[in-house]
């Protein structure tokens, strides 16, 4: 029998992004310089968009916690190979970004 992974103690389960969302929050702003009217008929426009509204720290914490629910290349030595073997060692990524 398998158990659901946790990032903390037994009673701590990471909520879904939809549960973390609060009206009016946002994690980024979009720069827009050109204010040109574009021709998209009213009938073709969408009325609602069901995505959660989240702040940037909430998003960072959520995905960090999820990453800690699993043992992976960032947690320590990982002797399994196939997909994960294609990742470069962290130090090489660092050097490539110089």
């Amino acid at each position, binding site marked *: 029998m398998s158990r659901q992974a946790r990032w903390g103690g037994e009673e701590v389960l990471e909520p879904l992004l939809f549960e973390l969302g609060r009206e009016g929050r*946002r*994690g980024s702003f979009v720069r*827009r310089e*050109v204010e040109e009217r574009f*021709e*998209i008929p009213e009938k073709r426009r969408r009325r609602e968009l069901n995505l959660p509204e*989240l702040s940037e720290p909430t998003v960072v914490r959520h995905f960090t916690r999820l990453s800690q629910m699993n043992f992976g290349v960032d947690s320590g030595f990982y002797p399994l190979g196939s997909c994960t073997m294609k990742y470069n060692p962290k130090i090489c990524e660092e050097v490539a970004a110089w």
Partner: protein
Amino acid sequence: KNYGWGKGVEVLKVEQDGKSGQLDLDDLKKKMDGVAGVYIENPSYLGFLETQVEEISEIVHGAKALFVVGVNPISLGILRPPGDYGADIVVGEGQPLGNPVGFGGPTLGIFACRGEMEFLRAMPGRVIGMTETVEGGTRGFVMVLQTREQHIRRERATSNICSNEALCAIAAAVYLSLLGPSGLREVAEACASNAAYLMRRLSKVDGIEAPVFKAPHFNEFVMRCDGSILELNRRLLEKRIHGGKPLIEEFPELGEAALLSTTEVHRKEDLDRMVAVIEEVMG
């Protein structure tokens, strides 16, 4: 012409109106006999929106076929979702959702269908279900419908997926979390607004026709020029600007044309600089 050939899928092309690019509904009706499904892209490959989607849906479903729609996910920040106008299956390129273009990959695909068992069982890709643990009744996530998967079904599996696609999918989820509903709408508006501005500016340049198709556009459009499009692109490249994708081989009937695209990363000065170079070349 596409990956369907391996399965012996026969593909028929439906005619489109030369001026507006819209699908020829009479031609579609004529070709519906014994058809399994109809695929359209909205926005189309050539950038214009297909506005007769309700009519197409009715014709397709009237012939008991499936209606499949390909989308650019960013456009859905402002456009009605295909499920609204009767699509059975929606597919799309997931790269625009926060993944770099990276010289062609890695990237991810979007695949959605109506929530019926008949569709779910035939669906490629992993299906993850939310459930409750036996002891304690806490929430848990598991792979469901595993009989379709490669570790059980072997070579007849419909699901073949690799962890690197999951990595791209996580990036897409992070991107959408940070944007939220207003952010995605604003990105879509910025894309469409930039394209509308560029179309208006280019249409005033002598020897340039933009957009070629008289229909609403999202963030891509076809531009035609008097003279060689390859030469125009070469002159743009000299000024370190990538011109549009030439369409002379794919769509010779469009003449010296190219497909241009703008996104929210383009600033007004970028667009103005491109117009200035094209003006100089054409003038």
